[in-house]
């Protein structure tokens, strides 16, 4: 049953006071996301919020429907600036499902590791920015310093820091550089150190705890009703994680825990995010060991539909030249059909529903955006709360404009 937007029981409004409507956003210094709130206030208490999204709408689906299957990958980078590799992977897995491709083992381990590196970057930004917006500059800088190191790793991996464009249909752009393992282990150790510093200054901090504990809480039944996934749902005590429930890539073979909270308030969300970062670091280390154990090997599937011929042959053989030309100008012909592939992104279930009519251009590419869906129950989290509680609640929902508005 959809809940009516009414003030909670026991909430009494002051007599003789008119409600005030406060317009917050779309560009507000205390929110890291382009969204407008029309907040109905009674004094300092929130009566209701109308959330207006769409300021970053740029026609993601329309653009995908007008290019080749490959040309959609850079658009997926721009869904979530913090975790581009996760969106790359989700899209490519959906297209591979439609093509019926199984990628080589080495590629799957690289993807798994890259996804976790990406998740770390997202959680670090969420926790760091939440501190910044509650006037704590230092923990934000710790978080951003760690994210910077992670982005350096991404740069080493694929040449770009933010918009990675790393994952390809049937593989990844190229294998890891030779000294990646050592550099990655070094980074993992440094990020652990920074997380420790972050923890020391924030987790037991009286001001931080007071602003987070008990705010933004919402029962898990209501979250499920709103199809909320990811750390928000896990903080309310539901251990739902696509990586565990429907393992994709190599998640069935790595050892990690799914942290859950109890109360579903902002403090639990914070603790769940911090623990997930430690789990991600664990997964990265396991992937590194595994990659070293299996040794060198192909990172792209050997299928003429998606594989580009070797450069040496392209320059010397007519057939390979034609194949290269077709692969660049048209890309793969995906057999007609439809497929939905869900992955666990940093915000929750990121799904891609792709439909092909058998041609070189997608018929439909739908992105199920966790940011958009997680934002919807926000009025329920805040009705009756103080205006100041909006800031940490919005921070831990971690709405990313690019993904929400597409």
């Amino acid at each position, binding site marked *: *049953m*959809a809940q009516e937007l009414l003030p909670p029981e026991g909430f009494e409004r002051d007599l003789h006071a008119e409600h005030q409507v406060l317009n917050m956003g779309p560009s507000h210094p205390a929110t890291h996301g382009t969204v407008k709130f029309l907040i109905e206030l009674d004094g300092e208490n929130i009566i209701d919020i109308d959330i207006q999204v769409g300021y970053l709408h740029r026609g993601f689906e329309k653009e995908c429907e007008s290019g080749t299957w490959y040309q959609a990958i850079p658009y997926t980078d721009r869904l979530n600036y913090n975790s581009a590799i996760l969106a790359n992977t989700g899209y490519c897995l959906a297209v591979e499902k439609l093509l019926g491709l199984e990628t080589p083992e080495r590629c799957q381990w690289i993807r798994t590791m890259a996804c976790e590196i990406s998740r770390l970057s997202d959680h670090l930004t969420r926790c760091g920015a939440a501190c910044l917006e509650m006037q704590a500059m230092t923990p934000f800088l710790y978080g951003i310093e760690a994210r910077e190191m992670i982005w350096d790793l991404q740069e080493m991996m694929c040449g770009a820091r933010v918009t990675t464009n790393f994952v390809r249909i049937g593989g990844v752009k190229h294998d890891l550089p030779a000294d990646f393992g050592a550099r990655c282990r070094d980074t993992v150790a440094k990020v652990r150190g920074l997380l420790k510093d972050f923890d020391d200054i924030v987790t037991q901090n009286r001001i931080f705890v007071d602003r987070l504990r008990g705010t933004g809480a919402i029962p898990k039944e209501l979250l499920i009703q*709103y*199809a*909320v996934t990811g750390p928000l749902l896990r903080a309310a005590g539901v251990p739902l994680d696509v990586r565990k429930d429907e393992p994709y890539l190599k998640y069935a073979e790595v050892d990690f825990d799914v942290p859950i909270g109890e109360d579903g308030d902002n403090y639990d969300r914070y603790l769940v995010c911090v623990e997930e970062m430690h789990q991600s670091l664990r997964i990265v280390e396991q992937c590194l060991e595994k990659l070293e154990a299996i040794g060198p090997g192909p990172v792209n599937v050997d299928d003429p539909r998606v594989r580009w011929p070797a450069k040496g042959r392209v320059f010397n053989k007519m057939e390979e030249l034609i194949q290269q030309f077709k692969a660049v100008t048209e890309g793969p012909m995906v057999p007609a059909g439809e497929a939905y592939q869900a992955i666990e992104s940093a915000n929750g*279930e990121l799904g891609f529903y792709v*439909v092909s009519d058998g041609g070189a251009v997608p018929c439909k590419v739908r992105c199920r955006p966790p940011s*958009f*869906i997680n934002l919807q129950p926000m009025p329920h989290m805040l009705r009756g709360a103080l205006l100041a509680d909006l800031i940490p609640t919005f921070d831990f929902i971690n709405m990313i404009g690019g993904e929400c508005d597409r």
Partner: protein
Amino acid sequence: MDDFGSTPLRALLGRMGDAVRETHAHRGDATATVDPHRIVDVMRFLRDDDTTRFEMLTDLTAADYPTRDPRFEVIYHLYSIHHNHRLRIKAGVPEMPCQIESIAELWASANWMEREVWDLYGIRFRNHPDLRRILLYEEFEGHPLRKDYAKEHRQPLLGPRN
């Protein structure tokens, strides 16, 4: 009709077989195309029945096939936490009248997703509590994800409104 070994599809065919028009399980995704007039009944059954128990409406979207009849398709993706299974439901929507019953009273998550489909495809959801545009602005004309909306068409909203 075949249930392709999918538990929710078997339950749906067993109890509401007359509402189902087609099933397939392409690439392992169990799918049923149902009668659009009975979408609310079908969805209520899928949510409440113990063998299906879909607590979550994960995704709701639409697709435009200009050469087909009916032209539009509304696509629902359901997920059950309890059983850990998924099901895709599809319902055809004709060009005239371009509407289907809303399921926002069954799952709250449908509210914004139906608004998005209305905004981008122009499919009306009857009995929706608040069917406004969500990603685009109120003054926008047309529905951009329809295949007959040219990608190059621009209609910027310029200047202050007040």
